[in-house]
Every structure is written in structure tokens, then in C-alpha cells.
């Protein structure tokens, strides 16, 4: 990667640049250095290590008997992995989309000089605060057909109401979406709220004079200028989506069957419970590959964009 790039100040190479550089010139690089080192070792180093392991037949602990790509072959012959990947697609897509939409809308609503904004904001945020180890139980109850919403609605007189997603292998992934959106959308809201608070008031005035109504002002002027916030939110949400482990562990434990498995659970189960580090590493690499496929083009377009000074 970029060790060389980081040291290479563009001017230094050029004629005329004094060779002597002051400490001040190096300061940005010096302060970044710890992060760079740590990233190189603890992210990329481990990533390479994992890549290497994915080509071995490591079982309980890492070993270095290379078996080529056969772990990947096994992986894609594994029904459970395919289910997990498909689930990730559905779950990730829906989760990110709903969180973004909900987060934006709630942030905009909260930004309308709402009385007791603080209380409402905290309510939207609190699901983040409570460990899923326990909220999982509460959700399990709520989503359970025999004593949750369904019962609630039936008790309220809607006798035909059915809500059995949690036990339906085809629908259970939507339960994950519900719980995950509940948990993460508040934070997305907070991100956007912080962004909204940074928008120059004059711009809004200008837009109003141009005849834009509140909705259009948000859509055309304010939200576009929050592009970096969308970026943050996207990264955070995809991070949560791809790493959703607790959620599945607590809410469905992968069930019914393994119909609500996500790759993170698959990977964890194989790496640690089933002593298949090789296979687990392969699945981790595939997960990473999926992220790269989505993230890299996005990153590219995002980082190329000029900053608005």
C-alpha cells in the first residue's frame, strides 16, 4: 500500500525545493503515523494473515498446510453459506435503506425547533445504548407469535391479525431488519442532525427566496450539501450490516434452521465453534470482497469530489 506514498511530498522531488524540511512540515504526517502503523499492522497485516489462512486447512488453531483454494470451493458448496450471503443481501440492503430514510426524516423533523427535542432525541438514540444481549430477549418476546405483537393485536380485537415472521424461515430475515433498524436508525438520525446544524443559514434563506418550499429546500439544497454525512452514514451502516452478529445471536440464533444466518455468524461458528479456521478465514475474505466490491467504487467517487470551500 502506501508507505512510500505517504513520505513522498510532491514538491520534495521537484527542483528548487529546499531539502531541509522543518518539523512543522512533517507534523501532519507525524500525527498520522500512529494510525498508519496500526492500520497497516492490525488491519492489513491481519487481513493478509487471514488471506493466507484461507488457503490452508487450519482447524482449531492456525496451521500452514496450504491447500490452495479448496476452502473457497467448500465454502461455495455449503448451503448454509449461500443462505447467509443471500440473507446479507436482503438484510443489508433493506437495513441500510430504511435506516438512511428514517434517519434523514427524523433528523429533519427534529430540526424544526421542536420543543423537548432533547428528550425525543434521546428516545431515538437509546436503542444503541442497550446491549442486544438483553434487548434481543425483549424483541424475541415482541416478535413471538404466541405472546408478542400478534397477541397484542388479537387482544385489541383484531382477531385475524397474524405476525409470525420470527418463526417463518422465509420472513425471519425481516425480523432482523426490524430490530436492527430500531437499534441503528437513531444514530443515523444523530449524524444527520449534526450535519444539519452545520449548514449555513444564508443558503436556506436564498433557497426560500428562490421559491423553494421547505421540502424542496431540504431536497435540493440542504441534503446535497450533506453528502459527506451520507457517506459517513453509509459506511457506518454497511459496517453494522456486515458485522451483525449479536443481533442474530440474540434474536434468532440463526434459526429457524439456519434460515436467518448472516455471514458473520457463519464465520464465527466455523472459526471458533467448529474449528474450521481455514473455512472461516475464507468466508471472511469473501465478506471483505463483497465490501470492497461495493465500497471501492463509492469511495472512489466520493474522494474524488472536490471539497466545497
Amino acid at each position, binding site marked *: *500500500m*502506501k508507505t512510500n*506514498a505517504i513520505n513522498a*511530498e510532491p514538491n520534495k522531488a521537484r527542483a528548487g525545493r529546499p531539502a531541509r524540511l522543518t518539523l*512543522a512540515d512533517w*507534523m*501532519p504526517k507525524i500525527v*498520522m503515523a*500512529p494510525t498508519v502503523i*496500526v*492500520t497497516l*499492522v492490525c*488491519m492489513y497485516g*491481519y*487481513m493478509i494473515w*487471514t488471506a493466507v489462512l484461507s488457503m490452508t486447512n487450519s482447524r482449531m*488453531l*492456525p496451521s500452514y498446510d496450504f491447500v490452495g483454494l479448496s476452502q473457497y470451493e467448500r465454502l461455495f458448496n455449503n448451503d448454509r453459506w449461500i443462505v447467509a450471503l443471500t440473507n446479507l443481501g436482503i438484510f443489508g440492503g433493506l437495513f441500510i435503506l430504511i435506516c438512511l430514510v428514517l434517519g434523514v426524516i427524523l433528523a429533519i*423533523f427534529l430540526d*424544526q425547533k*421542536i420543543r423537548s427535542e432533547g428528550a*425525543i*432525541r434521546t428516545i431515538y*438514540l*437509546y436503542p*444503541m*445504548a*442497550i*446491549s442486544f*444481549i*438483553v434487548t434481543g430477549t*425483549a*424483541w424475541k418476546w415482541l416478535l413471538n407469535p404466541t405472546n408478542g405483537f400478534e397477541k397484542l393485536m388479537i*387482544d385489541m380485537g383484531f382477531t385475524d391479525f397474524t405476525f409470525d415472521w420470527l418463526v417463518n424461515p422465509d420472513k425471519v430475515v425481516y425480523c432482523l431488519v426490524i430490530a436492527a433498524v*430500531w437499534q441503528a436508525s*437513531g*444514530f443515523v438520525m*444523530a*449524524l444527520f442532525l*449534526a450535519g444539519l*446544524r*452545520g449548514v449555513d*443559514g444564508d443558503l436556506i434563506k436564498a433557497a426560500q427566496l428562490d421559491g423553494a418550499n*421547505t421540502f424542496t429546500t431540504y431536497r435540493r439544497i440542504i441534503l446535497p450539501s450533506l453528502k459527506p*454525512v451520507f*457517506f*459517513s452514514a453509509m459506511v*457506518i451502516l454497511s*459496517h453494522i450490516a456486515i458485522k451483525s452478529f449479536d443481533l442474530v445471536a440474540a434474536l434468532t440464533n440463526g434459526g429457524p434452521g439456519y434460515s436467518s444466518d448472516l455471514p*458473520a455468524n457463519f464465520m464465527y461458528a466455523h*472459526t*471458533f465453534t467448529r474449528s474450521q*479456521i481455514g473455512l*472461516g478465514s475464507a468466508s471472511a475474505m469473501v465478506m471483505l470482497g463483497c*465490501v470492497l466490491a461495493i465500497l*471501492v467504487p463509492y*469511495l472512489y467517487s466520493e474522494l474524488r469530489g472536490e*471539497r*466545497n*470551500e
Partner: protein
Amino acid sequence: MSNIKAIRRKTTAIERLLRVALYLVLISVAAIYLLPFIVMLITSLKDVEEIRTGTLLSLPASLHFDSWSKAWSSACTGSTCDGISPFFLNSFQIVIPAVIISTVLGAINGYVISMWKFRGSDLFFAALLIGCFIPFQVILLPMARTLGWLGIANTTTGLVFVHVVYGVAFTTLFFRNFYQSVPGELVKAARLDGAGFFTIFYRIILPISTPIIVVTVIWQFTQIWNDFLFGVAFSGFDTQPVTVALNNLVNTSFGGKEYNVDMAAAIMAALPTLIVYVLAGKYFVRGLTAGAVKG
């Protein structure tokens, strides 16, 4: 934004109606968000028998606070039965340094990446972001070895280190994206005024970063406080964070499940985070860069 609404003193009927609708939406969404919490709270106040027999949302016949005191000080987490209270200190010892260090690092990194660009800084940022998508589960083993090698395995310091390492990508992301919209002229002006790298950061940039600091602290505090995986894998027997204790408390494999104690413990374990939300919330302020530049 507020400016949109602030202008009108006299509002038309439609606007008043919209406003009522707005509050209705906000409050009903809040109610939905609160539902699981209400379930937890109600449950924590019932006794075991009532949980077994009653329905989810029925109010407790009488309030039982003993589940709370039990969760706090006498529920068993492993072979010790001191509740979750002894573990709070561990958590704080991990969370506070880790949040501070990762936020500060993130702020500085974001500042460098958006205002002191050098060749490769954007590339590094991209690399950092991609890097943080490495599933945490796969790094457990190599990280364990690294920590052992550094001599900080199973210590609080080790946990702080791990949380900083895997938190810094996000904190950097938040700050960098916030600083994208800060006028670059401010840094230019300060450089001319003779301010150095850190002075600019400290005197000019940090003071206008409050909303994003709040967001970052909320995120980091929550992530680290609620972390289980690292907490369990890298802690020693005497440095376990509260989540591990909570997990131990909740996960019994036999004996009647004391849901009320579980719920009480969970709510208690979440209190520090909630307090952070409430305290930090008032720094969601507006207009920090207003008046800086023209254009």
C-alpha cells in the same frame, strides 16, 4: 431548519395543522421506539411468577424493586455473586481512555486528511475505511498474539488499545467528513497569523467541531461500552467489562430464568451510555461557522 419556521409568528391554519401532525409523528415514532424498553422496564419490575403467567405489556401487580438490587449487587455472574456493580469500574477504565484517545486521534486524522492533504492522504483514508470492514472475529487470534507480544494481553490497557485501533477508522471518518464543509480559508488565515498545526487545530478547528465531537463520542462510547467480543476475548478475569458480566448474568443454562433481573441489569448497564446521550445532546448546536467567510 429552524430558520424556516422561526420567521412566522402568526401561522396559518394549515401550518398549525402540519405542526400538530409533525408532533404526532414524532411522538408516535418515539412510542414505537420505546416499546421494547417499556417491555423491559415492566418486566424488571415484575416478579418471576408474574412474568411466567402474565402478558407482555400488562402492568406489574405490585412493583418489585428487588430485581434491581439483586442485579446490582447480588446476582451471580459466574461463581461470584456480587451483581454487575463490580464490573462498572472495569468498563469505565476501558471506555474513558479509549473514547478519549480514539476521538482525539480521529479528530486529528480528519483534520489532516481534509485540511493538510498530502500525497497519499486520501488513499490512506480509503485504506483505513476499507480496513475497518475486516470482520472483527477474524482478528481475534492475531490480535491476541499481538497483545501477548506487546505484553498487554488480558489487561485494561490491551482492551483500550484494541478499541482505539478499531475505532479510529470511524472517528476519522466522522471528523473528515465534517471538516469537508468547513471553509478552508480559516486554516489559511490562521497559518498566516502564525499559528502552527496544533494551534490551528486546537484554537480554530476544535471549537467549531462540537456537533461532530458529540456524534463521535456517542458512537465510540456506545460501541466500546457495549462491546462484548473484545471484552470477553481480551480481558483477564479481573478486567472483564460490564457486558461480559451481563452476558454471564443472562445466560444461564439451567435454573429458572430470572428475566426481571436480566432486564434490570440490562437497563442499569445501559445507564452510563444514556447519560452520555443526554449530556452530549445539548451540544447539537447550530451555526458554528456562520459569519466566517463570504461566498
